[in-house]
């Protein structure tokens, strides 16, 4: 209970007697009985605990697709969140959240939340009816049974899910699909696949040093990463390293907030990162600054790489390609090679190209040839999944007896594919997540009859949005599980309201730092929201009522119990705890060496770092980390659509506190490009290319190069802006090996701009 509210009300009524006495008098007068038809109920004596004055503290964790995966402390009074703060027990979160995180309290309590199951009368009509959970699940279950009977399988049911909620129990969405039979899955990842494959070819896995170990670096290159906006907690380690004397170089086509903090900023020609890295490598080789002993003992194919550099790469060529003057390339190359240890943070931006995997391999090579792999303060840092060894209890469900599926695939079903090694006769049907629109339009035998969307907003985040709008006309039924009315919900038939992090039990780890945080249910689910696994259980109940045995998902679950089932001895040992309950005392950190590959036992076929990867060649790429051309321009300007400070993909920008800072979208244009087009600062412009256009206000700025138009990826609740109108689904070079499908050349896009 809000104490001041009680005070205010009591003061207002001039309450001479105590509340207790007043209630006693009302009771004695026989006035405390419910009236027929009334909504409010008599307050039971035990419910008067509502007047408690103390704050309860719960542990939460930010489950969004973000490096930082913050540990949160949530303070609750009378069942209502009062405020949150970063958990100080995690030295990474260190008691602070980001600007988005502090706005979390707005999410459960926004009046705009999706509150009830609703069904749309005519897809896209905006005519919605409120229905009960039973009614919603009945419609869905009957449709599932119908398509199974029609097709002889559940392959007509497709799941579009990705990174909207990384709480481990949310893999129950995939588990729900498995429990229904063999279904179609949108496989892959839009975010980081080319780099994942590149690191797997070079090192045998994607595994980064502990970010807290950045303080030990004596030289840091931030390459295509903007942690000042997108990993704010990492910045303190970078700044600490700087204070200790480390030089920080930032390489990015855009002068970011991170670049502003660096000692050196290179405005690299977009997609020419590989050329730049190779030019540096050539210079290091020429000066014999590479770590001969490390290379001899721990790598394969270095001489081949050196031959390639001597034969085909010069510093001048690299300067010409990358736009960075040769004398700067040689200076930084020398500094990087001689500062021990030195580290490179490879951002996800630089691999979103048709040559992205090749570029990451070139940067990896630079770190390896200088002997900086396997060392504290060193490393080619990209990401890791080393702390994700949960049971995936929610995910690993049995197929119904006799289920029939897809024949002929066995590849990974995404970057977070934890299905294990079970080999069945059938598999799910993989559809390319990065070509979602195309797959919905063309999948056949059976077509995508039902689309289930959870933890994802394809209309905002997936590519070629005009095609996506057409694709969303095709399925017979589209079900969205959401917290807010997104563009995807607008084109759905049924929306199911899902819980926020405060309303469910789960556990979270990071793909960057080494901490694990429990997520306790801090408040009751608002309105009629349910967690993803509760939805799965309720659906299973209805499926089995209609057709016994049609769904294997348990029909009655407790999210706390399911959280507990995610833990195993391996996780306990890794984190040095004996029970998950210990996480209630605060987040814990994996007992891992701060340096990835510290034992120099690599996961490659040779067990060494592979400058020459035959596996990479087998997969159709170059065996050596050679230069690969970027996408050929098809319009006058390059389009960059990076992340905004005020959101993560399509999340947060719609929250009122974020709107206060960031009320509308802008595009950013260099004054030179603007003057050539007669565009002035603040003009309304049309940004257009072969697949679509957006209209918005332009800001002129020299933080972007003259050949670039930049706009942030975001979903605004009151604005039709969508950068995916301009981003097509051209594939990046790598990603299929470890994530099932290649990535997308998100930054290999072109457009032009004119006054609207």
């Amino acid at each position, binding site marked *: 209970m*809000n104490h001041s509210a009680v005070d205010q009300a009591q003061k207002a009524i001039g309450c001479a007697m105590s509340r207790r006495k007043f209630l006693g*008098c009302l009771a004695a007068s026989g006035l405390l009985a419910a*009236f027929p038809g009334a909504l*409010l109920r008599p307050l039971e004596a035990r419910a008067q605990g509502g007047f408690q004055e103390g704050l309860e503290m719960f542990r939460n964790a930010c489950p969004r697709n973000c490096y930082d995966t913050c540990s949160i402390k949530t303070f609750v009074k*009378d069942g209502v969140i009062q405020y949150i703060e970063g958990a100080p027990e995690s030295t990474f979160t260190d008691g602070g959240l980001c600007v988005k995180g502090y706005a979390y309290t707005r999410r*459960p309590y926004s009046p705009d939340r999706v509150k009830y199951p609703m069904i749309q*009368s005519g897809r896209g009509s905006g005519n919605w*009816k409120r229905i009960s959970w039973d009614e919603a699940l009945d419609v869905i279950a009957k449709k599932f049974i119908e398509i199974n009977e029609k097709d002889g399988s559940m392959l007509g049911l497709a799941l579009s899910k990705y990174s909207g909620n990384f709480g481990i129990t949310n893999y129950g969405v995939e588990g729900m699909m498995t429990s229904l039979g063999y279904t179609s899955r949108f496989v892959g990842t839009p975010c980081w696949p080319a780099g994942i494959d590149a690191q797997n070819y070079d090192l045998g896995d994607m595994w980064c040093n502990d970010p807290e170990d950045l303080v030990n670096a004596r030289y840091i290159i931030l390459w295509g990463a903007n942690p000042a906006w997108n990993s704010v907690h990492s910045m303190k380690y970078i700044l600490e390293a700087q204070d200790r004397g480390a030089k920080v170089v930032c390489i990015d086509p855009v002068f970011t907030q991170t670049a502003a903090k660096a000692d050196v900023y290179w405005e690299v020609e977009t997609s020419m990162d590989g050329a730049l890295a190779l030019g540096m490598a050539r210079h290091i080789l020429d000066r014999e600054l590479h770590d001969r002993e490390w290379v001899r003992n721990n790598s394969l194919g270095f001489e081949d790489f050196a031959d390639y550099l001597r034969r085909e790469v010069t510093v001048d060529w690299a300067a010409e390609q990358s736009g960075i003057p040769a004398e700067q390339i040689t200076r930084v190359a020398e500094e990087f090679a001689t500062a021990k240890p030195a580290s490179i943070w490879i951002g996800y931006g630089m691999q979103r190209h048709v040559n992205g995997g090749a570029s990451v391999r070139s940067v990896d090579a630079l770190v390896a040839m200088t002997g900086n792999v396997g060392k504290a303060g060193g490393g080619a840092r990209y990401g890791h999944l080393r702390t994700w060894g949960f049971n995936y209890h929610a995910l690993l469900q049995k197929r119904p007896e006799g289920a029939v599926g897809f024949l002929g695939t066995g590849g990974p079903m995404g970057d977070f594919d934890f299905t294990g090694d079970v080999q069945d006769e059938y598999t799910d049907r993989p559809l390319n997540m990065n070509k979602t629109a195309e797959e919905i339009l063309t999948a056949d035998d059976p077509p995508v009859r039902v689309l289930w969307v959870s933890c994802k907003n394809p209309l905002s985040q997936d590519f070629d949005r005009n095609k996506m709008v057409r694709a969303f006309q095709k399925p017979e039924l589209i079900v969205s599980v959401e917290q807010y009315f997104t563009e995807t919900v607008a084109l759905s038939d049924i929306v199911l309201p899902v819980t926020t992090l405060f309303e469910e039990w789960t556990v979270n780890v990071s793909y960057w730092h080494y901490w694990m945080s429990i997520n306790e249910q801090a408040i009751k*689910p608002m309105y009629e929201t349910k967690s993803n696994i509760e939805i799965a259980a309720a659906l299973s109940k209805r499926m089995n009522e209609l057709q016994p045995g049609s769904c294997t998902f348990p029909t009655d679950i407790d999210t706390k119990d399911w959280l507990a089932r995610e833990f195993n001895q391996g996780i306990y040992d890794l984190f040095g705890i004996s029970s998950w309950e210990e996480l209630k005392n605060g987040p814990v950190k994996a007992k891992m060496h701060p340096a990835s590959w510290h034992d120099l036992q690599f996961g490659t076929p040779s067990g060494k770092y592979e400058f020459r990867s035959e596996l990479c060649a087998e997969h159709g790429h170059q065996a050596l980390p050679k230069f690969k051309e970027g996408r050929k321009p098809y319009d006058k300007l390059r389009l960059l659509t990076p992340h905004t400070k005020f959101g993560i993909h399509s999340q947060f920008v719609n929250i009122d506190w974020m709107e206060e800072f960031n009320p509308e979208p802008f595009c950013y244009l260099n004054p030179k490009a603007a003057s050539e087009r007669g565009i002035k600062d603040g003009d309304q412009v049309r940004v257009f290319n072969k697949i679509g256009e957006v209209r918005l206000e332009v800001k002129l700025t020299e933080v972007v190069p003259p050949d670039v138009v930049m706009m942030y990826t975001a979903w605004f609740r009151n604005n039709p802006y969508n950068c995916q109108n301009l981003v097509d689904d051209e594939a990046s070079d790598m990603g299929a090996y470890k994530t099932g499908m290649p990535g997308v050349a998100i930054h290999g896009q072109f457009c032009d701009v004119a006054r609207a």
Partner: protein
Amino acid sequence: MECPKTMPLDDESRLTAAVRDFFIAQNAAELRASVAKLPPNWRDERLHDADWEQTEFAFNRLFVGPMALEAPPYASVYLEDEPQVMGKTTMLVRSVYEMIGLVSPWKNTLPDDHISLELDAALALHRMLHAATPSVRGQLQELRVFFLEEHVQVWVPRFCARIEAAPSVTPVLLCMAAALRQWLGTSIARQG
């Protein structure tokens, strides 16, 4: 929609209950049923000729979702600087309910300051006062004055204005906004 200045108690209670049930209805049938509960002198023609399915769609656009609400039915939205529920206003309203020994059956899942819960509390106060012994009547009356004049009367007119200006408003919704305004006028007048 003329309304007598001093409505008989039964009619006022019926009006309150009908408006209460309207704003918390879940579908067209419930909307229609709640309107049918209005006292006879409130049976506006527009209510008889309504397209109830269209009314339901519009009702959801204004008060339920899934889109951002055109006229959120929560006091907090109109009384606080930032439109968030479960804050100071919701807690104040909760404390009023608790002072008269009542609690929402949807405590902590539906904001206590939903218009229908507030109308229900007003109705309860009205009835309690009617039956109260002298020992509590004075305080109950003070509480009622506080709740209606310091709280309900501040936000409900803003809520009604929002309904009237809503892009999706329909004749039925306008009619019920008018009923709500009229109820407020009558209730405040009754306070003397």
